[in-house]
């Protein structure tokens, strides 16, 4: 018990980094994903082509590779990121692609008639999107987004590879130093707590959206 309270501060500080990556990736990637998803369903070929290539690259290569590329690779051509910025940049790029693909599917599930009935009511495109399309899309994509959110918590441990002090690294350092399994067990418990909280929040959201069909 004494040992636990001894290593807990460093684990909590690691959790802070993990949560900060998680939080900012989510806050930025979800709206970006909506925008890119909208871009995918336009009829402007050069744009859809560009987005397709981007999504293909992001989903077709490991996130770990992307992290290493951004932090260790880009400096070779003169683009230097701080550790934390590199991690955030790679995560946002990667998760935006996944979210965009999910939102594209959701957007395509909205019948054309919804847009037409908004149009004859003289709503602007933006009003239609905000009041009619996005709420319906969110309801459709919520389960898939939920999966990605849980994945994101766990994926955030990949920042380990570029030397960022996240939860996993904090546990690993303590384990190597003190030659005990306790830190890793604690790390696992913290991850479980984080994903449990997310699951509860997501269930709440799904319940909220179950008021209508």
């Amino acid at each position: 018990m004494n040992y636990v309270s001894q290593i807990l501060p460093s684990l909590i500080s690691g959790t802070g980094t993990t949560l900060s990556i998680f939080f900012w990736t989510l806050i930025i990637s979800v709206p970006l994903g909506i925008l890119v998803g909208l871009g995918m369903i336009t009829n402007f070929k050069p744009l859809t082509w560009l987005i397709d290539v981007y999504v293909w690259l992001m989903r077709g290569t490991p996130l770990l590779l992307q992290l290493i590329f951004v932090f260790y690779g880009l400096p070779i051509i003169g683009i230097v990121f701080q550790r934390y910025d590199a991690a955030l940049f790679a995560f946002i790029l990667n998760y935006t692609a996944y979210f965009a693909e999910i939102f594209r599917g959701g957007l395509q599930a909205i019948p054309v008639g919804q847009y037409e009935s908004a149009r004859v009511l003289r709503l602007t495109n933006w009003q239609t999107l905000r009041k009619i399309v996005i709420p319906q899309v969110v309801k459709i994509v919520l389960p898939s987004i939920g999966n990605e959110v849980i994945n994101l918590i766990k994926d955030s441990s990949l920042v380990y590879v570029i030397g960022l002090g996240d939860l996993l690294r904090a546990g690993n350092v303590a384990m190597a130093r003190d030659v005990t399994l306790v830190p890793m067990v604690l790390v696992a418990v913290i991850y479980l707590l984080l994903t449990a909280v997310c699951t509860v929040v997501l269930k709440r959201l799904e319940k909220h959206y179950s008021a209508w069909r």
Partner: protein
Amino acid sequence: MLELKNITKRFAGKLILDGVNLTVNDGQILTIVGPSGAGKTTLLRCISGLEETDSGDFFLDGQPFNPVTNRNNDTVMGVVFQDFQLFPNLTVLQNVTLAPTMVLKQSKAEAEATAQRLLKQLNLDGKADLYPYELSGGQKQRVAIVRALAMRPKLLCYDEPTSALDPDLRKEVEEIILKLKAEGMTQIVVTHDMPFAESIADQMLRVEAKS
């Protein structure tokens, strides 16, 4: 008064509307009839600005206008779609007040008062807080009518208003349309139900299938 002169419409080179002329006088009911595939829905979509025409002119009260671009002035056309297209994420009241508040800039109170009055008029009192999935087909249609009316259109169009409903509801639709006529609403009704068309029409336009 709405006039169409020589309206032509093709889909991928295929002629669908071949020089359609029509006049709808204020407060009257025009029914558009004809066989399946003749272009009735297409004509209605051209009138409501959902489809571009290839040639021809529209006049509203003698003034030329373009249904597709004419979006910033008063509401010309209200449309009741065949499958209603209510917004599933909004309650009945929100479905009706959304456009009046956002487009006509009515206050929430004003829009809701109008909505409640119209809902009552179409026998929908007590339904304001339900979501569309909780309504019957006939109720959905009446909400769609109320939603269109709340935008104070000059004309109201219906595409096959009896087709998605139980046959015994036909009479009810007929009564609503005639009631709105009594209040001065100008209406265009597309239907392939001849007895229904004849019982409501002041004027009938037959659209023929092109070979």
